[in-house]
């Protein structure tokens, strides 16, 4: 390992160690900072996982409450984001199982066609329309594929998680993660092509 990589790894470890120490103390300043820092990533993941913004926002709050309660279990050997997303996933899957004892697809079928309703970022009207259309196409295509494929694709291509990190978040073997990405992309690309045609 060269010096720069070593410095980077050590820097990451000291940051995750600081987070672990703060979580054990239930440091409110640290928690505020983490909520700010990971707000968009966590909410995006939850929206794509549940296909329901309101539910995603509820799960967003519950995830941080769980982080507070279980902070002492965080192992600084791993990235905080991986641990955070896996907590969010467990909470959401538990909730959906209680709500409807079927797979996540059950909920998706119920809400098929529901837009993810991305908020405005105040660009020009034309940009807004184009962006909105594109967002709707992407959202519709993602809703059209199985939840486990969608989750793998969002974690890989939107959140930029490595394959082993996705395996850690989802609790699936590495081979399954690769297969979900492949099958998901295969299912998704024709849907996007169809939407653009």
């Amino acid at each position, binding site marked *: 390992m060269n010096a720069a990589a070593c410095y980077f790894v050590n820097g990451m470890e000291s940051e995750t160690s600081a987070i672990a120490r703060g979580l054990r103390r239930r440091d409110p300043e640290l928690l505020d900072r983490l*909520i700010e820092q990971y707000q968009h990533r966590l909410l995006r993941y939850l929206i794509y996982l549940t296909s329901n913004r309101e539910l995603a926002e509820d799960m*967003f709050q519950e995830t941080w409450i769980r982080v507070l309660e279980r902070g002492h279990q965080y192992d600084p050997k791993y990235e905080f984001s991986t641990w955070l997303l896996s907590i969010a996933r467990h909470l959401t899957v538990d909730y959906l199982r209680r709500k409807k004892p079927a797979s996540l697809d059950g909920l998706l079928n119920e809400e098929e066609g529901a837009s993810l309703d*991305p908020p405005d970022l105040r660009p020009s009207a034309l940009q807004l329309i184009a962006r909105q259309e*594109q967002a709707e196409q*992407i959202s519709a295509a993602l809703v059209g594929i199985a939840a486990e494929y969608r989750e793998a694709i969002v974690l*890989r291509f939107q959140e930029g998680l*490595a394959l082993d990190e996705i395996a850690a978040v989802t609790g699936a073997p590495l081979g399954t993660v690769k297969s979900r990405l492949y099958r998901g992309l295969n299912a998704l690309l024709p849907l996007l092509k169809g939407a653009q045609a």
Partner: protein
Amino acid sequence: MNRDPHQQARELIACGSQGLTDSQQAWLHTHLDECASCRDYSQAAEQFVRSLRSVPVAADRALVRTTQMRVRLHADQLRHRQERMWLVWMSCILVGLSAAITTPFLWRGFEWLGRSAHVSNPVWQVGFMVFWISPALAASLIFLARGIHLTDANGTSRG
């Protein structure tokens, strides 16, 4: 076993370029140079990733503030609960110590009282037992009666 090179290429594309080893990347590049269909697939995947990353899904300020407030409130409740539990444990330790120190003296006191009052040994011994156990019984009853209230006060703030 020879695998279908097109499927293999698409599997590698699906893993994303950062998830590949150097040799896998080199093989993929060579394959894409030769295969128009897989090249189209790769371009479509790249286009999808760009589009996905440009989708503006963001948390709003109200959600973040509400979450921060809820987390702070819950942290306070957990801290209070911990403090109360600490007090309960300290009380238990003190009571235990005090019982260990005073029991022999009490026993002798009851023995002396029994002799002075000319009662048989079992009578003053039962009296000692009742006297000795009654504070613990009273405390247990109070804890049982207030148990639900304490849980509520610690777990779900009732104000």
